[in-house]
């Protein structure tokens, strides 16, 4: 797996795509592989405030439930409705169609704290 260069990553295995003051957040391919068959995705409501490093939802597979931590602080603009009916999409396309939420960033400078694709690749390489 090569991780897309246009995304930034966390050590908790989330990614974020920044476009202006908006950011799309998802979980990484490594995360979906670790979890296995995903059966539930719990996400916040539009308008909810989320904070960098704090949990904003959870992803549940057959064998385990895992918190999702926010890569950045912001307000939820949009929630991926696809995942309510088809959580298994997270196993198929975690960096694309199965994004989790879009937020308006309230502290865009936090992006600096995140890992580049190469740094994340090295991190999961070292972990596994």
């Amino acid at each position: 797996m090569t991780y897309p260069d246009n995304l930034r990553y966390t050590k908790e295995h989330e990614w974020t795509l920044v476009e202006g003051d908006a950011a799309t957040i998802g979980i990484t391919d490594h995360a979906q592989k670790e979890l296995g068959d995903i059966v539930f995705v719990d996400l916040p409501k539009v308008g909810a405030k989320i904070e960098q490093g704090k949990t904003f939802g959870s992803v549940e597979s057959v064998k385990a439930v895992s918190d999702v931590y926010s890569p950045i602080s912001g307000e939820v603009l949009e929630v991926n409705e696809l995942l309510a009916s088809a959580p298994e999409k997270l196993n198929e396309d975690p960096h694309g169609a199965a994004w989790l939420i879009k937020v308006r960033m309230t502290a865009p400078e936090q992006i600096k704290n995140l890992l580049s694709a190469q740094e994340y690749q090295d991190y999961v390489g070292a972990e596994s």
Partner: protein
Amino acid sequence: MLPNTLKKTPLHAAHRACGSKMVDFGGWDMPVQYSGLVDEHQTVRRSVGLFDVSHMGEIEVRGPEALQLVEIVSTNAASKLKIGQAHYSGLLYEHGGFVDDILVHKVADDSFFLCVNASNQEKDFEHIRGYNKFDCDVELASDRYAQLAIQGPNARATLQKLTPVDLSAIRYYWFTDGVVCGTPARIAHTGYTGEDGFEIYVAPEEAERIWNEILEAGEEFGIKPCGLGARNTLRLEAKMALYGHEIHASINPFEADLGWIVKMEKADFVGKRALAGSMERGVTRKLIGFEMRGRGIGRDGYEVLLDGQPAGWVTSGSPSPTLGKNIGLCYLPVAESRPGRKIEVVIRSQPVEAETVDTPFYKRPK
């Protein structure tokens, strides 16, 4: 625990080679899945799957009075076993709680072979030895055995290609000492999946070759290697207990709905007195199955509410790949432990609706 301190089965390299995901399971570096938990689960229900369960422990009791010792330490009636027959049984403390759940195989009049849980093997061995005032020896023999489980409707057809033993002649919960892939093997018609199948015990140095030959023999049936993840969902659907979840030192067999492995008519066994007291007073809690009605999965350790009040806890819970429902087992006060009762499972601080149901969740078609 550091990865290099984890114990490994003789098949460790083979698992790595076929891309398994490994986890620390009670101190063992074990495959949790290969192709995917649900895929492996379905493969066992529909055709055949192969599991490495070499982490399981084996204890041998041998000598003129072997039967007396086995009778004393276990709840089921070992005296009723014929040579070549096996049964499920319990090892209890004097207070009636579980030391472990085990399979007892009668190899000969003076020889019994016990299959015990991996993480309990030293404890079980010391426990059994502690009661050995008989003319027999107890040996922790786990290092001499690898164990493979071939499970599913095509398990027999697969294994039959590799052994001259007529497998159709081995009845359910019987076993025979024969040959598999040209090497001595104990072939038991047992399993932990709710599906038909066999568990074979072989020398560790032969394990990898046999593993590969079984995968080859099962190719025409679409056999897949299966991990502990699928083993857990399969056993849960069949409502088979897992030590550390449904049973442990604070749970007695009546509470765990395992009264059928307790033979109170036996002269004596460890825990009998406590169980007699428990019978007389009646148990206060009992294991019951449930299905989630609301959205969520009730998992191990989650609180269960009755009419909004804390009343019990979940011992195991998972999506059921066969039923397409979220199922689980929980302890409830005995008066409420019957099918059809509305309950709530507290999932991440939120009570979610569920209902108690009859078990097993899945029973294989005969």
